[in-house]
């Protein structure tokens, strides 16, 4: 399955990186070309996320759970891949639901920032996958300089878990209240 996974990951990487470019183009421009690019964004993101799901699923079959969950690099690859997929699904849903209004005012820059963050996650996922098959890049050195030794498992302590969960609840409440008030 490793070979299939290696082939399949090219699709989400290519599609989502292209989507990043499209988002950045649309964020900085209201020109007809940028608007045309934006019209392709939802299908691009949808196919990218779908390809990501397939690559993720095949990736789960490369090693048994007992193996992948026991190695720091394997754990890190899984963690960032999961977050990356969830994150791009979020961007897809946001663009899909909000529509072209996403490019109004300052929110276009929020979208651009989120796309850059998504690209970073995608790049880290790919880097860690490369490590797992013995192909190394300087990205891991950059992460090391930023404070994460990729040969150690990325996990957070209990108090950070609590903070994340509280933040998730607050964000959810904010979103629900915002929606209700708009609907009112």
């Amino acid at each position, binding site marked *: 399955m490793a070979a299939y996974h290696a082939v399949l990951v090219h699709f989400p990487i290519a599609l989502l990186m292209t989507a990043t470019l499209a988002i950045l183009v649309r964020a900085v421009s209201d020109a007809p070309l940028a608007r045309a690019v934006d019209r392709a964004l939802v299908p691009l993101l949808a196919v990218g996320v779908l390809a990501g799901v397939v690559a993720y699923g095949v990736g789960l079959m490369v090693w048994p759970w007992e193996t992948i969950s026991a*190695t720091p690099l394997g754990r890190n690859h*899984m963690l960032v891949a*999961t977050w990356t997929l969830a994150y791009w699904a979020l961007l897809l849903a946001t663009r899909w639901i909000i529509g072209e209004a996403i490019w109004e005012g300052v929110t276009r820059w929020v979208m651009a920032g989120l796309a850059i963050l998504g690209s970073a996650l995608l790049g880290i996922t790919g880097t860690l996958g490369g490590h797992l098959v013995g192909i190394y890049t300087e990205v891991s050195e950059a992460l090391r300089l930023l404070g994460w030794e990729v040969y150690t498992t990325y996990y957070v302590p209990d108090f*950070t878990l609590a903070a994340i969960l509280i933040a998730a609840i607050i964000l959810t409440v904010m979103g629900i*209240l915002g929606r209700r008030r*708009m609907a009112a």
Partner: protein
Amino acid sequence: MPRVKETVLHFETDEPVKEGGFSMKRALLYLAVAIFVGVLGLSWLTHGTGVIKNDIARNIFIPTELTMPLQVKAAYNGRDMFFRYRWPTRQPSIYHDMIKFEGGKWVRHGASVAGPEPEGIYEDRVTMLVDDGSVPEFARYGGYITVGDRMRFFTNEATAAEVRAHPYLGQKMKQTEVGKHLPATRLDISDWKSVVPEEQLAALRKAGYFLDLWHWRAHRSNPIGASDDQYIFEARYGDAGKGPFTDNWDSQKQQPKFMLDPDKTGRRALNWDDLMQHKLGFDDVYYISEDNSAPFDANYAWKTGDTIPRRFLQRGDGSHADIKVAGKARWKDGYWDVTLVRAMDTGNPADDKIMVDKRVYNVAFAVHRDTFGSRWHYVSLPVTLGLGRDAEMIAARFDGDAPKWDQAWTNVVLFYPGQVNWPLLNSAKHAGAKDIRAGVPVKSRHSEIQLAHYGVEMEFADAIKRQWLFTIGAGVLLILGFGIALNGLLGRKGA
């Protein structure tokens, strides 16, 4: 409630707040982004904490430094083989295993413990495993192959009672702990008890299936210019003959067998306070040996704090005494400088790897420092040693009795290996197990620092795995929450 009314209005119309020129919707959007990014930042700043902590009860102590350097040179003259080792340590540890008189009885201080010896009574050491190709896995995986199931000082170490009860290792070979051993000496590498039949052991040994172990100790051999000479096979043993030290303890009388000779040393015992203050150096009496001892005098008026070394240094003999210190091994300016010498052909091929000109060997090094003992050492990956042959480390041929040492050092990175054993590396818990079966060398896939980190994580495997799973889940929930916030706070198509 005009203020509430105004807020609702802003949500509905996205009108700017009059006073600040800022819409409530936009403010909340910024707040949502700030919460999301802020929590991601918190995650980044706190990751990797909260799990790894020392736990002596579980034999867990993580050294502050995970790697250290070692410099090595080798030379030979056709008769003798020299190895010179140089490594940094803040201060030399030359005291080891003492018996202190306190409360009217003799009490042991400085036994092997998990982590650093609390009173600083534990010696520095350098060791070297040597093979001539008879143990092929050693060339690829080094000392990892010697670390088996339920080894001493692992969290799940076999108890002394279990080992003593083993018909071969305990009852016949008098072992009390599971020490280093080679894989083919077990029917099942995952079971330390499954020693192969004795006739098979004999055949393996005859075929050269053992690792030679050069073992220099700063207290238990260095003061008399000697080194221990051992080998690893189905356990770790000293070579045939008498080693450089023995116990100075009469278990029946619960007292030392020997004391310092007052006529030769001016005292009968060391002073405990001198040891604690590191007052005794290389030129002082800090050890007990055949040359400075007398039979213990139980009638002497011993006083609290009198201390006698529990290890008695002796001139070894036979194969056990093949390795000597060349010159004086000393610590100076932050570095140990130790040179060992042994006959290339000791005449003991059953215990030693005979060194032959133009041959390539595999060696691996380890250092104990900072009063760490047992498994708390820094180890190297295997290094090839060529005697006049191309290799990672080339031994220089010289004429005369002493090498000039004019060649460059071979720099070796040593690392803390943690609780990683050979059964684990060959199990489903190691993604590289397939590579091991295919004979892929460890160096082609792992660096020393990588292995050190893996070794540490293995000591907390279950806790880290649990925390990692929680982290994945929390991250997904955060992304979901952020998605809901975004979609609730942003205007939408047609709105």
